[in-house]
């Protein structure tokens, strides 16, 4: 809504662009005419209330669901994402909310799951080196990559999941609620991680309910409401504006409280 490009840093090339994407499940329109642009080196936060269509949108981009109508342009070409493997091959990596790690396998095996080097005689040494390199690039603190994932903390698992998504050097990384299950320190760690991923030149789409986290790392905040675009914001926009866009009402508990605070300050 409030686009003031003077305060924005230069954007990278356009990585992903959605035009008029809709998705129906029977009679329900989960997504209607969604427009979304994501550039390289940019963190786009996708916010919205429950049922706003955030997860559906991520699933469409991850190749889990196919859109009913609309076009997806990725890297300048129009693409169809018919299954998760197709999305991965194009360079769209997804970190799911439940991380999807195998607890019985060690960190290296999880990072390389499905993409092991040298399928008939696994190259453990090379995989371990690459795993350490990736984790070190993210300044991750994993005690040992030979430990099973079951022995890691929530934040460390998140790190492993993000490192895994970086393995194929994707152009776009989607993170679904990356901080939902994390403590304060771990959340900070993951937000740092997201910044580092952006600084590496990847485009990032992040879903979150937490406005503080969103403000902390997002370059742009895209609000969805009832399956439709409901405005684009920047981290400096007020909480009131964001909540209004998310809930669709300017008059609500949060805005009232904010109004009271403003009134008190001005007195």
């Amino acid at each position, binding site marked *: 809504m409030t686009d003031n490009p003077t305060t924005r840093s230069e954007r990278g090339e356009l990585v992903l662009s959605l035009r008029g994407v809709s998705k129906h499940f029977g009679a329900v329109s989960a997504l209607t005419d969604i427009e979304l642009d994501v550039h390289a080196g940019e963190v786009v936060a996708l916010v919205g209330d429950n049922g706003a269509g955030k997860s559906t949108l991520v699933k469409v981009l991850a190749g889990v669901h196919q859109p009913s109508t609309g076009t997806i342009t990725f890297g300048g070409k129009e693409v169809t994402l018919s299954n998760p493997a197709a999305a991965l091959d194009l360079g769209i990596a997804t970190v799911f909310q439940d991380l999807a*790690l195998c607890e*019985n396998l060690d960190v290296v095996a999880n990072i390389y*799951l*499905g993409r092991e080097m040298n399928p008939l*005689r696994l190259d453990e040494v090379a995989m*371990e*080196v690459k795993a350490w390199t990736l984790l070190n690039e993210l300044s991750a603190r*994993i*005690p040992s990559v030979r430990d099973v994932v*079951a022995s890691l903390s929530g934040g460390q698992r998140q790190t492993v999941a993000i490192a895994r998504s970086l393995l194929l050097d994707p152009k776009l990384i989607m993170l679904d609620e990356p901080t939902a299950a994390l403590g304060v320190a771990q959340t900070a760690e993951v937000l740092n991680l997201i910044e580092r991923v952006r600084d590496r030149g990847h485009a990032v789409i992040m879903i979150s309910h937490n406005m503080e986290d969103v403000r902390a790392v997002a370059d742009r905040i895209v609000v969805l409401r009832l399956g439709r675009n409901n405005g684009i914001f920047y981290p400096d926009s007020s909480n009131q504006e964001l909540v209004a866009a998310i809930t669709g009402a300017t008059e609500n508990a949060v805005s009232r409280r904010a109004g009271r605070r403003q009134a008190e300050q001005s007195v």
Partner: protein
Amino acid sequence: MSNEMQGAPQRETQDAPKPATLLDRSDSRVKHATGISGAVGAFVERVRSGDLGSLPVIAGLVIIWTVFTSLNPVFLSANNLVNLLFDCSTVGVISLGIVCVLMVGQIDLSVGSMSGFASAMVGMLWVNHGWPVLLAIAAAIVVGALVGAIYALLLTRLGMPSFVATLAGLLAILGMQLYVLGATGSINLPYDSALVNLGQLIIIPAAVSYLLALAPGAVMMLLGMRTRERRRASNLSAPSVGSLLVRSLAITVLLEIVVAYLNQGRGVPLMFGVFLGLAVAMDYALKRTRWGRSMNAVGGNHEAARRAGINVSAIYTSAFVLCASFAALGGVLTAARLASASQQAGSGDVNLNAIAAAVIGGTSLFGGRGSAYSAVLGIIVIQSIASGLTLLNLSSSLRFMITGAVLAIAVIVDSLARQSRVSHGRA
């Protein structure tokens, strides 16, 4: 401003201590084992946390052997052990297949019937229809693979739990076995044939067996040194030459002693050699290939495996096909061992022995954890009990009870160790 002042020294202390140069040793919070004493310490630590590996089964084996030897010294005689190994090989091969399905968190209850049907097929095709023996065996294994593929199809396409599908298969295949055997109910295999000789007589020549016993240690040392060089070149921690040498020497000495003892009697059965060879091949496939990694992943968390781009249906299919094929091969070996294909083949305790062997050996019923060697260790335990009780002239009623108790203990140990691993963060 004050914030910056506070922040600066912290950042310095974070960057300052960087003495560790190895990639996997940069985290100062982690203890690492060094040298031989360190390796021993790490092993003890692992066992205490519930990562028991094959320790319980080896302990159980020692107890079982001690008890039976004290009751009847013949038990530990070389020739009795040779016989034991002959008996192990047949069900052991079936158990290798069970390891595959348990690995992906499924089960095949029809391996007994499958093995019986395979032996009946070989009897019919080879003896009654005059097919070449190898072709008959191949046909039996192909049928096994088909059965496995059907189970996989029922599971992946129709969502039929493998427990039910294979239970239905158990009955259906048993029916097919009875049909093939016809009214006579049994087909005798020619005594002088190579197949029956394999099952009853053929021994690996002593010299060859000593040489073969050298191989594992040598291969371990060679590969260990190669990996060590590569790890050092890649700036990773590497095991010391000493610990590699100690381990290779220990396994070589152990194997040579076992082989020497068996050679006091008839020697090492070729059939057991075949079984061990298959186990080694399976272990390599499960641990060192992408397929094996995918098997582990599917058993651990099949949804995660699916999202990682693994073709989960194909992995399930491969597991069931392998399991039923191994069951068929095991059936052929059983026919060779008994020199006949009968209605009794594959019935009774074969099914449960094969499954129990895998579980007793340390393959988890919950999926995602196990190794091919668990089939070897487990079947030796089960056959030891059977052989010991036979030597004591005890009835099969007692044998069933004791085997049942051992299986229960094995599952309890698995379960307790699993809880302990979870609480120590090692699941």
